[in-house]
């Protein structure tokens, strides 16, 4: 390095940029891997809702009515009737092997019972291991059967001389009208992807921050960084992290473009709030990264702790399993993850268009994260200046 180079924030920034351009692994961590992950998850969830779930039917009756039921089940977009199943034992095997997800058993007196006005039971076994699949099957099979049952009932009543409106009221005295307020297409791609993409991004922001500071401690190059930065910890850290703030902000904006432009997620609220939150999100995770370096004092321990912190984060945010149902320590822990607050803002502003007063409640904690590094500033100062702190601390 040229000794006559200027000192200060810009010099550290330039030094860091040189590092990034020279080391392919930095490009990998900041740009290539996040892009691969975005592409991977988008192609994974592209289809949106499960379609053509294979189900098996034992039609022991094989009459006009039973065939009608089979036809109707097959017509449901989410279901697909596989080759006929002959007996329960075969059906059980297919269910366990995962070849079918549901088994509908139509008994041999199905039509004759129904015509004699007796209840003709249909037995339905379904795989509820995955609740997304199980819930879809249950909902669609039940509504198909209920519809047919209702038609039979109405036919019976009409034959007995009831009027059309009377039979309607008899078949379904209380109807439930469903209004989906938010995410009206009930497309789970929206909510899963809007949670998963930021989760991947937080990984890379957090670990890159720890890596770029920690590696200087490990390789004892922190001294040259301090000299370039005029011996000021704040200058050194700002200059070092600024390139990543810029790269990850661009990645974050690219992520938003993918979500709202390319995939067409609903955007009910204020897009500037979402953009602002994304920039805060990048800064918040850089701040948390500094906290980890400050607390653990070296690259290895910092990364190990951060890996636990970031790889479990998604579960705690409540995007899959709702927060209201969680055990209270988990609810508390979730508040210490910037991801939780960021995803709240996304849901509130993108899907719900919540009032500002509500979203502010998520902005405040996200901002508080930015001040965290100041807690460990004295410790960072020692780390950066005391030679005894440098080197590889892994060996026992």
């Amino acid at each position: 390095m040229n000794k006559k180079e200027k000192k200060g924030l810009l010099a550290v920034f330039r030094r860091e940029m040189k590092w990034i351009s020279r080391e392919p692994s930095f490009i990998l961590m900041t740009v290539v891997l996040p892009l691969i992950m975005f592409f991977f998850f988008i192609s994974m969830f592209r289809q949106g809702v499960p379609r053509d779930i294979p189900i098996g039917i034992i039609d022991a009756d094989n009459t006009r009515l039973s065939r009608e039921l089979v036809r109707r089940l097959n017509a449901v977009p989410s279901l697909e009737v596989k080759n006929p199943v002959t007996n329960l034992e075969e059906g059980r095997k297919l269910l366990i092997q995962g070849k079918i997800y549901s088994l509908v058993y139509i008994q041999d007196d199905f039509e004759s019972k129904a015509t004699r006005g007796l209840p003709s039971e249909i037995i339905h076994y379904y795989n509820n291991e995955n609740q997304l699949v199980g819930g879809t099957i249950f909902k669609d099979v039940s509504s198909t059967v209920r519809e047919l049952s209702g038609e039979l009932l109405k036919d019976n009543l009409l034959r007995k001389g009831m009027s059309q409106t009377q039979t309607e009221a008899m078949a379904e005295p209380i109807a439930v009208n469903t209004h989906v307020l938010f995410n009206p297409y009930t497309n789970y791609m929206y909510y899963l992807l809007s949670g998963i993409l930021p989760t991947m991004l937080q990984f890379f922001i957090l670990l890159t921050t720890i890596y770029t500071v920690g590696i200087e401690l490990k390789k004892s190059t922190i001294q040259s960084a301090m000299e370039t930065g005029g011996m000021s910890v704040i200058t050194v850290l700002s200059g070092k992290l600024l390139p990543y703030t810029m790269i990850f902000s661009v990645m974050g904006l690219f992520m938003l473009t993918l979500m709202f432009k390319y995939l067409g997620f609903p955007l009910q609220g204020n897009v500037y709030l979402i953009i602002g939150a994304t920039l805060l999100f990048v800064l918040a995770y850089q701040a948390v990264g500094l906290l980890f370096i400050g607390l653990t004092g070296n690259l290895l321990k910092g990364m190990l702790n951060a890996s636990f912190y970031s790889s479990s984060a998604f579960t705690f945010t409540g995007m899959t399993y709702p927060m209201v149902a969680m055990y209270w320590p988990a609810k508390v822990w979730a508040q210490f993850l910037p991801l939780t607050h960021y995803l709240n803002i996304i849901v509130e502003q993108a899907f719900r268009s919540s009032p500002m007063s509500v979203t502010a409640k998520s902005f405040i904690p996200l901002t508080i994260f930015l001040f965290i590094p100041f807690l460990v500033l004295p410790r960072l100062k020692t780390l950066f200046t005391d030679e005894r702190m440098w080197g590889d601390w892994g060996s026992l």
Partner: protein
Amino acid sequence: MNKKQIINLLRENRIVSWIKDGFDAMLYTWYYEYKNIFSDAGVLSLFVLAHLVYPILYPIPFYKGHDVVREVPVAVIDDDKTSLSRQFIRMCDVNENIRVAVHHTSLEEAQNDFFKNRINGIIVIPQGFSGDIYRNQKTSVSVYCDASYFYLYKQVLTGVKYAASYMSAGIQIQRFQSKGLSRPAAMAARDPLPLISFPLFNPSNSYTNYLIPALLILILQQTLLIGIGSLGGLSYEKKRYHYFLPVISNRGGIISVVLGKAGAYMSLFLLHSIYFFGIIFRFHGLPMKSNLFNLMVFIIPFLLAVIFLGIAISTVFRTREMAMLLLLCTAMPFILVSGFSWPILAMPVWLKNLAMLLPSTTGIDGFMKISILGAELRDVMFNWIFLWGLVAAYFLMSVFAMKTIIRKSANYTEGNNHDSI
């Protein structure tokens, strides 16, 4: 001693000594690998500490009794205010899906509570609700819900529909009875095709029943991959690969190296497996529908496949930390392609095929079937054989990769090889 005997003895000796040398080399590598594992804080945390902490802390949100979403709070707007509408509200409240948290008079008020996350659904009972029922007219209630959160949406809708169909049944029976039918006849007439549903494998809708088995398999795989990767990075960093140069100069010596390493990892992870299936399962109150023998028979090819894959990948890394950095981000895509929370059914074909290369995909599927669905080994025969196929393929890969990097390490002594990945 005649000539023949001497020749025989020599031939025998060469094979015997070759085997003996190979075995010695394997044991040496095995022991040496233990030393590497137990002398590095990073590897040790991944190989031991992670297994103690992670399976207990990760599922904390769903700790006993919190594994089912129930009693989701909803708001009620009762525009009818009659005994029938109050009866309907009571029916909503008593079923375990939802609970009536608050009463409102306008939709705006209720929506405000929605934004503040105080409620997750709104039920509106229109004016004339009871009047319609008394006049034998069809009536309706409205439910407003949020499909952004799948579980809450499902709970609210199920809860209201349950209350509506329960009350409907009562009304239907009364109406039939007023037409002169007996009570049993009325009950039969109201629903000609009753559907009796049995949710299998996870009847209680428990989230842990389905999360933890997948999670445990994934923890085994990821800690192995990252741990072995870190050891590879360390070997490069601390210039340790060339220790094996004399071993691989023997014919087939590389196999001893790979098997020795695999033996060290395998012994540790078999212990972890027993701890996972024996203790962690019980800790989280999971039903274990299999015996330890079946599980072990299934877990062995899984662990071997992961280990050989890990050894092959580990030769790429130049530092311990880089291995962690690049492998950590794989946990989430790996668990999702296994079809764990997003059904495999809804994935593109190329992704399904690519996912089959990961031991976790076949492993999670087979392990779920054995432990939760109560499948026998023959039900998961395909998975088991497929895993052995992966073992063979990754073994060859690891032998090749290991040989290449050890040969390259001959350059170590000469100088700088500081390109880092």
